[in-house]
């Protein structure tokens, strides 16, 4: 085996690990939800892991990320700890948003992770503005903006793509097309179901990508980011993916056939990559078990952290509605 192919294999093992961390975190969330430890809405990313992992792998520390309410995977892949994510869902003050956001509103300044946005389409204008700020301050950063195909029906999608293209801003628009806006199928809500055409109509280069293949996602993101970083303005990726679980914990899934779900599960991004590595003799049973054990250990630690973390005192309820004294003319972020 050449040094190069060994490095590539290691690289794929890292992607596999990232996807597995998300999968197991989400499974743990479902379990904790059933146990009553997590409340509110909970939207799981199971099945879509390749999208967040593939794109995040191409981002730099100084880049910004805007995500949706189905963002545990993005947060984890961006480098936010499982501890602070789970503590947030527990509503604890050691949570990434001090327990004020919950599952749908993970925020982290240290990784430039701007939510956790639960108004569909509402994050896109923010991403445009972040890119505008970077561009005006001559910082070489990109803003990666994740949203579902449901957001494509919102006016804010069209306004934001137009503005980003008009002002040639460094935004990577990542459309996670999982075929259902909650329970409404793409074809039931869009007269034009080719989403890349819509982006292209704003003079934005757009590519459809197999969102179940983490390597394809990463290649596409790399290619798109090259153009964006070169100053070519925004790019658009339609990441074709599928959510294996219900929309949220309240969804009886009346709108799709079980057979359809099963069909997509055969394209499970984790199983596919694992099989490829096994096939090539680069991943043995022992390696896989070690990987699972490491992830399980990390999550057990995260659950223990969240359990032990504290609830914010009631006296703090009104904090952060407006900035606290001393924050006036605060340092620019």
């Amino acid at each position: 085996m050449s040094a190069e192919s060994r490095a590539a294999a290691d690289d794929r093992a890292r992607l596999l690990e990232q996807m597995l961390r998300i999968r197991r975190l989400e499974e743990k969330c479902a379990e904790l939800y059933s146990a009553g430890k997590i409340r509110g809405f909970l939207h799981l990313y199971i099945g879509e892991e390749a999208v967040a992992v593939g794109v995040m792998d191409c981002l730099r520390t100084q880049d910004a990320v805007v995500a949706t309410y189905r963002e545990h995977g993005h947060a984890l892949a961006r480098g936010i700890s499982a501890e602070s994510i789970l503590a947030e869902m527990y509503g604890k003050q050691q949570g990434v948003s001090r327990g004020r956001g919950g599952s749908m509103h993970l925020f982290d300044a240290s990784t430039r992770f701007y939510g956790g946005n639960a108004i569909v389409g509402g994050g896109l204008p923010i991403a445009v503005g972040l890119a505008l700020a970077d561009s005006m301050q001559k910082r070489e950063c990109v803003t990666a903006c994740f949203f579902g195909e449901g957001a494509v029906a919102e006016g804010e999608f069209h306004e934001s793509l137009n503005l980003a293209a008009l002002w040639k801003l460094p935004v990577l628009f990542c459309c996670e097309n999982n075929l259902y806006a909650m329970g409404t199928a793409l074809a039931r809500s869009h007269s034009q179901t080719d989403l890349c055409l819509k982006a292209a109509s704003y003079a934005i280069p757009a590519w459809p990508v197999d969102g179940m293949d983490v390597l394809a996602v990463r290649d596409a993101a790399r290619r798109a980011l090259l153009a964006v970083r070169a100053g070519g303005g925004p790019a658009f990726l339609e990441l074709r993916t599928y959510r294996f679980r219900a929309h949220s914990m309240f969804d009886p899934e009346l709108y799709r056939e079980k057979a359809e779900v099963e069909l997509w599960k055969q394209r499970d991004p984790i199983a596919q990559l694992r099989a490829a590595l096994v096939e090539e003799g680069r991943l043995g049973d022992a390696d896989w078990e070690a990987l699972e054990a490491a992830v399980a250990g990390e999550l057990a630690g995260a659950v223990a952290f969240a359990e032990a973390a504290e609830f914010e005192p009631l006296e703090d309820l009104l904090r952060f509605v407006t900035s606290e004294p001393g924050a006036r003319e605060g340092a620019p972020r």
Partner: protein
Amino acid sequence: MTQPHKTTYREAARAALREALARDPRVFLIGEDVGRYGGTFAVSKGLLDEFGPERIRDAPLSESAFVGAGIGAALGGMRPIVEIMTVNFSLLALDQILNNAATLLHMSGGQFQVPLVIRMATGAGRQLAAQHSHSLEGWYAHIPGLRILAPATLEDVRGMLASALLDPDPVLIFEHAGLYGMEGLLAADAGAVEIERAALRRRGRDASVICYGGMLPKALAAAAELAREGIEVDLLDLRSLRPLDTAALVETVSRTHRALVVDEGWRSGSLSAEVVARIQERAFYELDAPLARLCTAEVPIPYARQLEEAAIPQAEDIAKSVRRLVGKPDASPPTPFERAQRGAPDA
């Protein structure tokens, strides 16, 4: 040179923008027609030539996107000033203003400040009918996380912007469209003004008139008329609609024991209702008479001049309401406002 110079509300607003842009390279202006057109109300006229298209940014007709972009740019370290043509158009950006600008700091556990300033024109009086003339600042004053300002004088429109830009949180400035042409004298060294307190524009012992924005010149005219009749009005200009200066409300009512609240917004669920509630919560035993309100008729603002005028409280209506409040007989014929409100439910 400290000689006061003659200027207008519009020019004072422009001087404030020019100073803000010159002082801080992070400040820039986005809005519809702020550049080549010079601003719908000509407030930003000439700024494009002075500061260039990078900082005076003409935006497409995408209120939600350019307000949201302002939020994002504020998060990214800039100090954007977003101009929205009128308060009616701001409804297209209400999602961004409420769900993001007002919410991000709290929802992120204090991590993300949004130092954004949004300016917009509000108010009636120019026959622009029911989609350009409303006074919805009271709605915005309902929202925690926002600071809401209503400059009613040359000093305030000149000075509130600088203070708003120092605020690490979102500030909405409502400029009354009917005031842009208002002339007056402004000190040559006019600059930042404080933005926390209401201001007493006239001192009197007989009754308090509490108002803001476009109603201030009308209240001043009414107060001058009443003074000729021997009624001295304590005239309070709220200036900041959120937070409200409750202490100033208590103070004026404690002096006069009677108060009229004048609000160009509709009465039901209005800012005037909030003012009245606070006075009765905090100064009930100071009152010698029921609190009175004068608000815009509950109708979408009509085009026809006589109807529009009758929908909005005018100086003579303020004077009449004060006379009633102090128990002074008033034999004058009904005003257009009074005539138009006849038969209104609970008028």
